[in-house]
């Protein structure tokens, strides 16, 4: 006989109705539940304090000045540069004012705003962790060791670990999928389904949430030393090599319209 013999396993069709379908439905429902839970637990973002906002915007202005310095003349640029350097030296742009200069970095744990942020993250983590571990336990308790479906396409043996978790049979063809693996597949692969049901900015998927967490970064990193950042910005302004957008603009314009007149 040419070619490998295809493995035949006769599955009870009840496996489909009583394992595959329930796992899928439960996973979708948990996703929806998670979405609504996290909307429920969301804390409204706290408003920035006036002085904090001032500090941020002055920093932004300095950065704008670096990027768009070509729009204004050198004299005007220098005037602004000196003003900014003076203010930074005095420390009046800092949130804590000139007196706060010496205090240095505050402890993030003592800052109530910081604690709020961390509480929010904890809540998010809980909403993700609790249902995940519950379902994992449920599947392990009831359905471990079942082979529940066969993929309609061949795969390389590397997928064995992924598709046959909980089934310790070495010779089983890779195309057979165990219940635990089906759980993992639905865990990671249901995002499009959630998009369809809940709209595109839902909070149902684990993966998306975890990515978001990583982007947010460490909450502790929020309390940088603003004074140093301002000082660095002054230096950046200092090294800007000024050019003026109006320099030679009449020639550029004439060249541009040379053909039309």
């Amino acid at each position, binding site marked *: 006989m040419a070619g490998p013999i295809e493995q035949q396993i006769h599955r009870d069709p009840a496996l489909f109705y009583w394992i595959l379908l329930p796992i899928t439905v439960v996973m979708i429902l948990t996703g929806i539940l998670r979405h609504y839970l996290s909307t429920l637990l969301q804390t409204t973002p706290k408003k920035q304090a*006036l002085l904090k*906002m001032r500090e941020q915007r002055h920093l932004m202005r300095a950065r*704008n000045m670096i990027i*768009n310095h070509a*729009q204004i*003349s*050198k*004299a005007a640029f220098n005037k602004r540069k000196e003003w900014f350097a003076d203010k930074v030296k005095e420390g009046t742009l800092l949130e804590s004012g000139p007196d706060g200069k010496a205090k240095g970095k505050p402890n993030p744990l003592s800052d109530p705003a910081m604690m709020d942020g961390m509480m929010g993250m904890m809540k998010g983590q809980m909403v993700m962790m609790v249902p995940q571990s519950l379902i994992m336990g449920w599947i392990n308790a009831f359905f471990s060791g079942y082979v529940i479906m066969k993929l309609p396409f061949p795969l390389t043996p590397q997928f064995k670990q992924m598709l046959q978790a909980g089934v310790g049979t070495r010779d089983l063809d890779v195309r057979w999928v165990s219940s635990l693996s089906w759980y993992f597949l639905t865990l990671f692969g249901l995002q499009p389904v959630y998009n369809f049901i809940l709209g595109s900015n839902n909070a149902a998927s684990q993966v998306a949430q975890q990515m978001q967490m990583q982007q947010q970064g460490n909450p502790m990193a929020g309390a940088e030393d603003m004074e140093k950042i301002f000082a660095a910005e002054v230096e950046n302004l200092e090294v800007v090599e000024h050019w003026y957008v109006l320099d030679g603009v*009449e020639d550029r*314009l004439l060249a541009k319209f040379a053909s039309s007149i």
Partner: protein
Amino acid sequence: MISPTLLQPPAHLSPSACIQISQQAPAFLQSHTRTVLPYPLSVFSSGETQEIWQAYETLLLACLRTGDDKSASQCLERLVERFGEKNERVQALRGLYDEATAQDEAALQKVLEGYEETLKEQPTNMPIRKRRIALLQSMERPTDAMTALVGLLDTSPTDAEAWSELADLYLAQGSYSQAIYCLEEVLLVTPNAWNVHARLAEVLYLSSTASDSPGNALKGLSESMRRFCRSIELCNDYLRGYYGLKLTTTHLLDTLSKVPSKPATATSDPVFGELAPPSLASIQRLNELATAKLAEIVRRNTAGEKGWDGYEMAEVIAARELLDRDTLSIQR
């Protein structure tokens, strides 16, 4: 379906366009009535989109302008119902409504006090701060408005809107150098805004005509001319830019022909930058370019050609007048 004019109304709405929008209001309010279904069904009919609320806001503003206070109040009611009294934007819209429907000075004063009350509680409420400034301006208290604007810009120095407002106020007071400073700030935030470039050029032109020393005037004029050039470079068919370019180049040619020995060799002027004065030939050619373009715009706009009809009527008339002035002086 919501028409695009409701979603993104043009920034400068002409009265006729405005009345057109506000006339849509009753029909729109009628067609978007809230049909409240009982609980389990209401889950499925969440047919609300951002567009609807944007449309409500546009309608509210248009209705207030055209005096359709009834529709305006309905729009506002729905916005309040959806976003709550505490929403900053809704608060500002409510303030706007109160201002528009205020009957006399005392009522306006009351609105102003209301704003101050709100700001005491939430000093970061930018929409209300801006409303307060606008109200101060319309109550003809420009000095108070300026103080408030300077305060706002101290906390939020990247607010282009506020900077340009302050520039206008300074200009009205005749403080040209302050106005120029403010407009430069606007440019630092929005570097490619051709209208701001042209505005700055206009202020420079005004300040140079007001300046007493001929050297300074010349510098101001050439800087202003260059700004106009930049604004045209960014927007090819900008009528205001060409108008200004023609005005400044004519003026420059006049001045330069009167003063044959060029006094503008000192290039380290602290106010007007460090560029060498433009050559006479290029000024001449820019003048020709501006004249040709202005004539083209006026001709095509008057003929009602497609794609050339977006200009302001008043600006086209002014441009024609400028061109006529030119031909008259040649005939003489």
